[in-house]
Each structure stands twice: as C-alpha cells, then as structure tokens.
C-alpha cells in the first residue's frame, strides 16, 4: 500500500505544477479558465469517489445526489438567509458539506447491509431520490431551480471569473493533501486491509463496516463541497444538472484516471473537465465517446491512466525501503524468541476460563457441522483440536471468532458472553486467529500486514489523520516500530519489505502468525499452522507456539500433524462429524478406541 501511496504522493507536485502552468496560460483565455475551474470542482468530488471505489471497493452511482445537496445548500443559504454574504457563504458551505456527509453516513449504513449489486442500485436510487426531492421542493425552486446565486464574497473581495480558477484549485489542493494524509494514516491502512481481505481484517479487530461507512461519508462530504463551490461559481442550480448523468461522469473520471489514487482522480477530472467545456457543441456524441472510453479503459487498462503511468515508472529501479522509521534503531532481538514486551496482563480473572463453549451447534441446511460441543480452556495452556477432514474443526473456530451465526449454544470469552458478536469485537477482547489458508493481505508488505495486526492498539482520530497532526504521525511511527519488533522476535525481519503475495508458502504461515501475535492476544486460535511446512519450519513453529504459551497465552490449535500435536499439547480434543468423541491428555486420547476407529476405521 505504501508503495502505491508513494507513487501517488510523488505525482502530486507534478500535477500541481501543471495546474499552475495551465492557470497562467488561461489568464488570457476566459473559456480555458472556466474549464479549469470546473475541472477543479469535479476533482474534489472525484477524489472522494476514488477512495470509495479504489480503497474500500464500494461503487457509487449516486454521487450527484451529495453534489446536489451541497449545491442547493449554498444556493438556498446565500439567496434566502438574511445574513451578510461574508457570513452566509461559509455557513451555507458548511451546512452543505455536513448534510452531504450525514447523507453519506445514512447511505453507507443502509447500502452496506448488502452485497455489491444491491449497493450500486441503492446508491443510484439515492441519487434519483435527491433529484426528485429537488424537483418537487417549492423552496428549492422546483424544476427551474435557484438562480442568481451570488459569488463568494469576503468583505470587498468578490471571487469570480479568473480568480475562481485559483480559488477552486486551492480547495482541491487542500482536499488532495488531506486525502493523502488520510490514506497514509491509520484510516488508510484500515481501508487497505478491507480492500485486500475483509474477513482477515475483521478477525484482527478492524471494524470493517464502520470504516466503509466512514468512506461513504467522506466521499459524500467531498461531493457536497464540490457542489457548494459549483453553485457559487455557476450562479444557478437546477435539478437536471445534479442528476444521474453527473453521477456517471464522476464515475467515468475516476475510472479513466485510476481509482484508489488521489492523482488518478485529479487526472481524470482534469481531462473530462476540459473535454466537457470544449466539447459543448458536440453534445450527445461527447457522452457516447465517454461511454466508449470507459469501456475501453476497464478492458485495456483497469488501473486507469495513473495506473499506466505508474507501471511505466515501475520499469525503472526503485530505491530500497524508504518508509518513515526504516532508518530508526531496530529493537534488539529478544533472547527468548517470542518474548513479548510485557507479560499478558489482561484476559480472564483468576478462576474464569479464557474460553468457554457451551452446547455450540452449527447447521448448514440439513448438515450439522458442529453438534452440541462444550468445553472450557484453562489459562496458559495449549490445547489441540483434531479430527478427520470435515469434522467441523474450522467451523468451530469460525463460531468462536464470530464468523457466521451459531445455530445454537453460547460462547463466553473471559466470562463475557460473546454469542452473536461481530468478529472485530471479539478480536478486540484479545482473541487472535489464523486461517487454514493463511489469509494475508496480498497487496501489502509483510511489515504492513503485521502493522495491521496491532491496529486496535493504535489510538488516533480521523481528524488527526486528515490533518497529519503530530499525534497521528507519532502513532504511525509507533505502529511501524511495534511491527518491526514483532518481526524481529519471530526472525522475519528480512522479509519486512516483501509483498505478502510474493511470499513462499512456509513464510506466509509464519507471517500470519506474526500478524496475529502483533495484536498481543491472550487467546490464540491457530488453524493448521504446520500444514505444508518442512521439518525446519515445523521446529521453528513448535518453538514459537510453546514460547507463546509460556508467556501466558492460551492456545487452541487445529492440526493434523500427530507428532506435533502429541508432543506440545497438554490436552487433545477430538471431533468427528461435528461431535466431540474424546477429550483429555494426549496419551489418553492416543489410546482411545473411538479415536483410533475414527482415524483408522474399524473394518480390520
């Protein structure tokens, strides 16, 4: 992610220079200046949509609705309020942006209950509802809208014509700056985990839904801001101008420029903004060309123009890791391999089981995958869960970590009933988990993966991220240091800069364990960690798991490697067709007739 963002940040000065050059050239051409002003306005809205589409993978065909809210707020406020213009304008803009952000929250809240298709339809419906309301509201002027919206005035200074170009781009630059900050900070890292693997992000304690709603609100606020400026400089707002075609145009800008990057949104907005104005006499054929263009782009260059440029740049060698903090002193490798900074302090009070499962049942249609399973774990112990394939082991893990809903039964973690909780809330209690197929964030580096592990320990606010306040920067630096320390403890330091998707299989598993450990869990569920590992890797794994246990972490392990299970477990539980058939010390379970039958059959 940081690599992607770095390219983005590096492109911004170039784009800024282009804006300035165009602005100087446009001083002699009012049409150019006007086209440039609209490009800036579109860019503001496109940046928000770009983050929504490229960073949290949500599509919106209703951005014109938010744009309209901002535009009408300014048009109404500046023409109807009995306030001096110097006060009315900022107030109206604020009203527009806040209303659009709230609408974004609401749309996100509703739309995110559903999968992709429904979400896109819901956003389209939102846009159409807005147009309908604008059209039918007498105070908003109905079909003819609001005319004679005054230019922004600050005392004697009225901003219009050529200065409007600079004003609009100044706002766009601020928005670009804030958005890059946002992506660099904790919020951006959360976005990136969502884009890569939502489920893995959830079990690390990242409230994915909340972040997606946040992205909707941010995109809504920016579209509202763009609309507010649009109304001020155009001087007239009509319902048809903020209808579906505008939503489609914004979408095209983002796709053309490249979604998920601020620079891409700026490039797309600038190109379409200029074509829009200069191609006025080609109405209709211009829009047909847009449609053809967007289809060609998604087929031939899904990363958009900025993606193409980035790929060109990538052909040149890149300097090695130059992230903030890379040059800072490494924490000395601890003597004990997984020794943590502080002993496990939280977790269950004495006498309360870290994990208690009671009568848990999970049915898939007619199939009972887990059948009335009950057990409690003792603090600081390593328990293994074994059983033939399809016995329900991973389903039980899912149940404990809050993935899917239980058919019956209760689960208590450290005495708290967590039945029905979302995965991120359970993770936040201090429960870690790895997956059978090592769900790493493929497009992120090993370091970033491990940073995501300690996400819930980071404390910065959205506002601090946006403005890149010292507190946010410090939090980012600390997160990097913490992740590096974890990598050092697990001897994964050399892999820090590698993209997770480029890792060898054994390393994927170790990195996933590191990511889970980075959250400092006191209950850790590990799903088949030894599968596919060679003998050396198994020895390392065994050492790491035992070290965790010695630190007081309660471990529950699914594993098929019987030698490993029997040598490190204090207790072994056996599932067969969803039912617990044995539970006890390894030597006891090994000789249990039912277990032997389950594994070897009874035919002989």
């Amino acid at each position: 992610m940081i690599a992607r963002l770095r390219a983005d940040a590096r492109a911004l000065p170039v784009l800024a220079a282009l804006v300035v050059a165009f602005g100087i050239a446009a001083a002699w051409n009012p049409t150019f200046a006007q086209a440039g002003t609209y490009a800036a306005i579109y860019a503001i809205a496109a940046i928000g949509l770009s983050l929504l589409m490229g960073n949290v993978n949500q599509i919106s065909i209703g951005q014109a609705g938010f744009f309209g809210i901002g535009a009408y707020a300014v048009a109404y406020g500046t023409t109807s309020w009995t306030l001096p213009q110097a006060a009315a304008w900022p107030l109206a803009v604020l009203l527009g942006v806040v209303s659009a952000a709230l609408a974004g929250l609401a749309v996100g809240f509703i739309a995110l209950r559903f999968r992709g298709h429904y979400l896109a339809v819901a956003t389209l419906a939102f846009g159409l509802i807005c147009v309908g309301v604008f059209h039918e509201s007498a105070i908003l002027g109905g079909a003819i809208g609001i005319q004679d919206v005054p230019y922004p005035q600050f005392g004697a200074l009225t901003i219009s014509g050529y200065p409007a170009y600079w004003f609009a781009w100044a706002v766009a630059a601020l928005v670009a700056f804030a958005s890059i900050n946002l992506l660099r900070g904790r919020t951006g890292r959360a976005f990136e985990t969502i884009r890569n693997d939502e489920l893995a992000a959830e079990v690390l304690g990242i409230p994915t839904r909340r972040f997606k709603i946040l992205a909707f609100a941010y995109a809504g606020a920016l579209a509202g801001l763009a609309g507010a400026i649009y109304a001020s400089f155009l001087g007239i707002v009509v319902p048809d101008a903020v209808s579906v075609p505008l939503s489609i145009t914004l979408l095209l800008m983002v796709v053309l420029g490249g979604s998920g990057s601020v620079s891409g949104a700026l490039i797309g907005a600038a190109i379409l903004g200029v074509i829009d104005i200069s191609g006025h006499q080609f109405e209709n054929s211009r829009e047909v060309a847009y449609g053809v263009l967007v289809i060609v782009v998604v087929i031939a260059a899904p990363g958009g123009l900025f993606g193409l440029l980035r790929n060109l740049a990538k052909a040149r060698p890149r300097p090695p890791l130059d992230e903030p903090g890379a040059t800072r002193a490494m924490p000395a490798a601890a003597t004990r391999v997984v020794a943590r900074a502080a002993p496990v302090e939280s977790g269950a009070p004495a006498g309360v089981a870290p994990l208690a499962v009671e009568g848990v049942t999970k049915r898939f249609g007619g199939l009972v995958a887990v059948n009335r399973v009950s057990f409690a774990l003792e603090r600081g112990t390593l328990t293994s869960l074994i059983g033939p394939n399809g016995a329900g082991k991973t389903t039980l893990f899912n149940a404990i970590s809050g993935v899917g809903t239980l058919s019956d039964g209760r689960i208590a973690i450290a005495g708290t009933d967590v039945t029905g909780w979302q995965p991120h809330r359970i993770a936040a209690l201090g429960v870690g988990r790895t997956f059978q197929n090592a769900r790493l964030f493929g497009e992120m580096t090993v370091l970033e993966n491990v940073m995501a592990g300690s996400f819930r320990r980071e404390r910065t606010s959205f506002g601090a991220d946006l403005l890149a306040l010292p507190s946010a920067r410090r939090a980012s630096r600390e997160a990097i240091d913490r992740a590096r320390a974890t990598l050092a403890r697990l001897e994964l330091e050399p892999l820090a800069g590698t993209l997770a998707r480029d890792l060898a299989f054994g390393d994927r598993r170790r990195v996933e364990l590191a990511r889970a450990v980075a959250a400092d869990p006191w209950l850790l569920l590990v799903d088949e960690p030894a599968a596919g590992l060679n003998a050396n890797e198994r020895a390392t794994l065994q050492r790491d798991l035992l070290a965790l246990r010695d630190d007081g972490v309660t471990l529950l392990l699914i594993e098929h490697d019987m030698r490993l299970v029997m040598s490190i477990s204090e207790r072994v539980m056996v599932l067969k067709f969803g039912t617990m058939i044995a539970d006890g010390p390894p030597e006891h379970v090994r000789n249990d007739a039912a277990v032997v039958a389950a594994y070897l059959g009874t035919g002989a």
Partner: protein
Amino acid sequence: MLQLLVAGLTVGSGYALVALGIHIVLRATRIINFAQGEFTIVGGLIALTFVQVLHVNTWIALAGATLVGFGLGLLFERLVLRPAARSGEMALTIATIGMVSILLYGHALVPGWGSLPQPLPAFSGDVSDAVAIGGASIQIQSLWVLALLLLALALLYVFFDRTYYGKAIRAAANNPAGARLIGIDVTNARSVSVGLAIALAAYGGTIIGPITLVGGAGGVVIAIKGFVAAIVGGLESPAGCVLGGLLVGVVEKLIQGLPGVSYGISDPIVYALLLLALLIRPQGLIGARSAVRD
C-alpha cells in the same frame, strides 16, 4: 380503482420484463446490467424504425425488434461484457454503466430517433380505444400488453424448463465449472443468455410503446424501476421479478392516484420503497436469504 389497477399492471408489465432481463444477465454473469433500461428504450425505437421505414404493422415490428435485440445482446456480450469480465466484477458493472452513457446519448444521434419520445402505432384499432368493465374504462392496448407479457413468460418458461438447450443454459449459470465438465459450452450459454435478456428488453420496450411512447431519456428511470421490481420480488427468482414488476407498477399508479400527490413525487416514493424493501426484506418477496451478507 380498477382503472388504476389496470394502468398499474400495464406499466408494471414493462418493469417486469426489465426485471426479468436483469435477472437473466445476473444469473449468467453475476453482475447487474445497468443498461437494461436503455436497451428497452432502444428496442422500442427499433420497432419504430420497422414501422416507419419498412411500413409494417406493430406486430411484425415487435418480432423484428425482438430479433434485432437478440443480435444486439450477442454483440454486447461479445464486445463489452466478455472482455471486461477479465478485469473483475466492479469493472464489469462499470462497463454496463458506460453502455448506459452510449445508448442514452447515442440514440438521439440516430436519424429518425431523436431525443424526444414518439408514439408507436397501436397493436389493434386506435390507441385510445377502450372497453368499459365494471364502470372502469380499460384501454384495449393495456389488455394487449398483459396478454403479450403472459406470452413472453410462457415462452421463457418453455425454453428454460422444457428444452434441453434452456436447461443447459441454466446449468451453466448455476455452476459453470460443473457445466463445463459435462460438456456444456458455458461461454456460448452466457452469450445466448445476454442475447435473450436484451431481446426481452426490446420486446418490453415495444409492447408498452403504443401507451408510453418510445424513445427519450427515460431509460435510467425504467432501469431503476426494473431493479426496484427485481429487488422487491427477489432478484434470484424469475417469478419474484414478474410479481415485483407488477406490484411496483400498481403502487406507482396508486400513489399518483392519491388526491394531493403531485405526479413528480411518485418516483422518489417508489425509490424510497426500494430502500425500505432492501432494509426489511433483502431477499425479496420470493427468494432465499442469499442477498444478505454473511
């Protein structure tokens, strides 16, 4: 009241066919075709061209438009959907939105079509011919629309449930990998599915043409009402799509019939109903709970 009901069922037939088209494309490609409404508009215009240029009656024009629609669907699948599918689901959805832009603005450039809606000749007699049933005056054209909707449903049912080819297409949509293993040409099935969906759009655009006019910029509105219909009824169920379409049509006409309700506010109310329907019963009236995220 009966009059409003029939009027609602008439426009609802159009929505039902759009919803069915969306359903068929969704089954075949796993994405929503946002251009389905635009294809409905274009389909009606193609029928108009048949009438104006070839001087045939509306029945022949209906058959012609449906056939041309099928061909357009095959082209759409081959030139847009198939290549875009390689870039992922979001790209595919965006490509259909690009298609909206092409059709919405492109049809105004075609000689004889223009950007203003035009009337299509009636299926029989005059558009204003009506019969009195129980005190209500019912347009003959409305009865034709309902009859033609039933005809389309019957043909689709026979095709998908009674022919080997139709069953193969369903198998390919349900489980592409499995269908491939038993020798079904999945790519071809997908292509034919999209062809059928667009043929259905053209058919729908034509049958409602005499009453609602053809052409104009209303494609997005038709499309979204098709979605509303599909989602209210259940996107995964063909019966739900039809039911949802009729229901949306009737609700719309009833809202417009309420005293004191302006004509323009009925659409936003219908869209708000969509959001409400999504919230309360995301799987639709008919359908499994698959729409809800796990």
